[in-house]
């Protein structure tokens, strides 16, 4: 009833605004950006996103100039070296030419294929960078540039189109001026995600590929293209096994959809075939023997452990099979599936916060303060890592830029996104003080000799506390959503 009333007033308001539409656009702070439609808006914001990424790429990477082990940058370069010089069968096998103790491949085969393609690119312009053995610890101006460009190109080819696809699907039917402005804000939130940019273009990783494939899968689910969703998510799983954090949500949502259709067995087997087909294509070089298969799986060991240790996530996923979730429900499902994995899994890296961050960013328009909360504390949890990499300046700058973009000046009359109003002001003020305080302590003071990792531990505890609160909040939100959809179902049945 409330919703119907709100819709009616919105219609009236829209009609009144439509008359003054052109002028309102010209006077609105970002009317010029959204005036020409979705594509120019997206293009401009993505150009800005690329600029920020290119600028962050100027800064140091993980393990720069720190022999003998270096860091993730050297790991990725080493994988390019291995995949370019050795046949696919030997990539995961310990041998004289492939010493698995020195950054052995521990991601599924799609990462290996991606390393191969990028390795070819590096070989073309700087063959010494991928020479077998001789290129260990190879660090030059040019090789760093080439590596950075592989990440940039991956972002442009995978993540940006996926976000565009999701954004188009999510914003179908939002064409009024104020809504266009909110949609533009949403793109900025999706593309200028400080955690992702700092990890991928600073620390150095390729999360943009697996996260991009996941976003594509989500968009396909929202536009009812389940087969494409299966294929894309299988590819995401085959790029980084951590994408399995989302697997319960995808699996149960799609299963629930299938069960509600006319011929459930046929639907389920269709999806199953697509998944198996995708896995078969990716794992093709390793299917010739069980040994080869097990060898690769053993390198992905944390994958096995992770999946069996967590049952907390799956309550909502189990219920989703029974309840019909709308798109919001699915997105919250993704969030509630990945958060507990992050919180309770074995051997979790700080970078894994990127996984819960993804559905939070997709939900940013619906629940902006949630995304802001998760982003700022996600950044804090990554602070020690980024500080070790020499990325303090980009950290501060991107944190500030995100804050500015979140609070972008907008026409308050037409915007639906309101600034975050804290439920418990004193508590949140205290949190903010701790937030800044922890940064200062970490930067200026020396930890005691007995507990050299004291400050890291403090930061982790503080962040865990916030993430746990967040998990409670999102679960409560999903409870409300599912209760609401159950009521709607009941109403429909009565009617």
């Amino acid at each position: 009833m409330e919703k119907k009333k709100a819709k009616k007033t919105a219609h009236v308001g829209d009609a009144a605004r439509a008359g003054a539409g052109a002028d309102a656009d010209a006077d609105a702070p970002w009317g010029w950006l959204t005036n020409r439609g979705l594509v120019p808006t997206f293009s401009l914001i993505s150009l800005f996103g690329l600029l920020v990424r290119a600028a962050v790429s100027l800064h140091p990477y993980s393990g720069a100039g720190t022999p003998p082990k270096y860091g993730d940058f050297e790991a990725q370069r080493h994988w390019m070296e291995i995949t370019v010089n050795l046949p696919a069968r030997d990539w995961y096998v310990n041998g004289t030419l492939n010493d698995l103790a020195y950054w052995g491949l521990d991601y599924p085969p799609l990462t290996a294929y991606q390393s191969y393609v990028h390795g070819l690119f590096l070989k073309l312009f700087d063959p010494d960078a991928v020479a077998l053995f001789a290129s260990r610890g190879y660090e030059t101006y040019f090789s760093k540039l080439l590596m950075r460009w592989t990440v940039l190109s991956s972002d442009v080819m995978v993540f940006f189109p996926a976000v565009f696809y999701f954004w188009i699907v999510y914003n179908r039917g939002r064409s009024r001026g104020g809504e266009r402005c909110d949609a533009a804000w949403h793109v900025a939130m999706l593309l200028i995600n400080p955690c992702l940019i700092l990890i991928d273009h600073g620390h150095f990783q390729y999360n943009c590929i697996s996260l991009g494939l996941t976003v594509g899968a989500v968009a396909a689910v929202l536009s009812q293209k389940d087969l494409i969703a299966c294929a894309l998510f299988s590819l995401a799983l085959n790029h980084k096994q951590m994408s399995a954090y989302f697997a319960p949500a995808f699996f149960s949502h799609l299963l629930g959809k299938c069960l509600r259709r006319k011929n459930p067995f046929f639907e389920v087997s269709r999806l199953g075939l697509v998944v198996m087909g995708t896995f078969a294509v990716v794992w093709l070089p390793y299917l010739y023997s069980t040994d080869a298969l097990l060898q690769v799986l053993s390198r992905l060991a944390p994958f096995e452990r992770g999946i069996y240790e967590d049952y907390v996530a799956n309550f909502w996923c189990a219920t989703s099979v029974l309840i019909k979730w709308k798109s919001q429900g699915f997105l919250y499902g993704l969030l509630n599936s990945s958060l507990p994995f992050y919180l309770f899994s074995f051997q979790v890296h700080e970078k894994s916060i990127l996984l819960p961050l993804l559905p939070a960013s997709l939900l940013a328009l619906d629940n902006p303060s949630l995304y802001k909360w998760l982003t700022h504390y996600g950044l804090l949890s990554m602070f020690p890592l980024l500080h070790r990499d020499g990325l303090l300046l980009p950290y501060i700058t991107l944190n500030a830029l995100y804050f500015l973009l979140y609070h972008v000046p907008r026409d308050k009359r037409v915007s639906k996104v309101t600034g975050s109003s804290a439920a418990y002001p004193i508590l949140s003020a205290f949190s903010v003080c701790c937030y800044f305080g922890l940064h200062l302590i970490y930067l200026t003071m020396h930890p005691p000799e007995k507990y050299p990792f004291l400050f890291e531990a403090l930061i982790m505890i503080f962040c865990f506390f916030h993430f746990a609160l967040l998990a409670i909040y999102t679960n409560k939100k999903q409870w409300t959503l599912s209760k609401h959809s159950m009521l709607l179902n009941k109403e429909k049945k009565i009617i």
Partner: protein
Amino acid sequence: MTPPPPPASELLWHAAAAACVKLLLVPSYRSTDFEVHRHWLALTHSLPVARWYADETSPWTLDYPPFFAFLELLLSFPARAVDPVIVHLHRGLGYGAASAVLFQRLTVVAADCCLVYAARRLTRNCEPGKGRLIWVLVIWSPMLLIVDHVHFQYNGFLLGILLLSISCLSEGKDLAGGCLFAILLCFKHLFAVAAPVYFVYLLRRCFRGGLARGIGRLSALGAVVVAIFAAAYGPFIYHGQMQQVIRRMFPFGRGLCHAYWAPNFWVFYIVLDKVLSFVLRRLGFDIQTPAASFTGGLVGNSSPFAVLPQVTPLITFIMVLLALSPCLIKAWRNPQPKDAARWIAYAYTSGFLFGWHVHEKASLHFVIPLALTAVQSLGDAKHYFWLSIVCCYSLFPLLYEAQEYPIKVLLLLLHCMAMFLSFFVLFDGSARVKATASESRTGDESGEKRSLGLAKKGGFTIGWITKCYLFGILLVELWGQFLHPYILGNKLPFVPLMMISIYCAFGIMYSWIWQLRSIVRGSS
């Protein structure tokens, strides 16, 4: 009802967001200008005033006027607090530690506050759409980001003072405007190219109320200007250093062109000379290869030109004055405050085109003031659109390292797109108003058709000639970056730069003619 001007908080938002991008650019390529300014910090901090313009510790001698030296002295105190080696005269030579880089880059970002304040003052009474557009064009100017925050200079600060001066003039506050210009001249004497315009304009404006009041105003202005110059040069006159100061500020031994030819008129002159000498040699004439070079100094009486007459600093000076004369006549006849920005921009364009030893960075001096005129009419907007793209492109050779390539291309593309979208909205709205107005006047079918036509023509569009020219930039870049190294390898390495120079020179020459025409015809 006119809509209220945009709030200051929005401007601060833009300034803060731009500052974030600038801070991300800290580790990028720095030119020798970085070491120049670091040395000046050390120089002003370690030596007494009498030695500032006489010191020979480093080849990067002080060649800006005294106010800039005082600014460096002011900055040297926090510099010493951050890292004492920065301001050490000998140990700091070539010092490139992270502390020095971060400190100096931060000073440039902080100095941009002047530009932000000027932008605020200029748009205080503007329509919101126009005001926002000026902010985007000035604060997010890709040329400023490239030159100030990568290459390293303090143009944002200096242009801020210039814009403040223009702002005062356009509000009719002549004394403040003249005063600020005098201060600017004591920071960087290169801005003196617009001095004739200021002089004529202010002189005429003084006497608009009669002789007595005119003399009073003139004396007040004169006194203030003299006081400013005295404050700047006084200490050096006291120490008997004036000749040395002048010698440092106007060095001989520099050629007609910089090592990379700025895209100005002399590019055509040089190319013509080379072509003529080639053709005449083929025809059998005896043409001597010139002993001097364009980039080197004046070597006695020998000319770097093989066929065409020699060009001396005096000739360039006369040509600049000639180019300025229509503008000066206009300013004398009818000194309108609203035309001040246009005339000053024209003065800097003329100085850029015909001046001696012009740097390509000097295009900033006319592009930024032109941003103020760009919002005034559709023709101005179209002109500014392609001119800013051409001038930004002409700065590309400044950042020649591969790391900055995506950044400079993205900055230019962003600027291009933002300009197109915002000009479109700004002039689309006014075109629609015109169309509806004409509709209501006539009311019949033919009137409707005419109004539709108006709506189509009135909006912001790019003509096909402009499109071709801008596409040509893409071709020049493709040749220079990809095809030339691939096809010709290391042969003829100067060709790509020469092509950029010549191609941009065409555009800037045309812009000069366009500006001259718009001034002579008089703005609407």
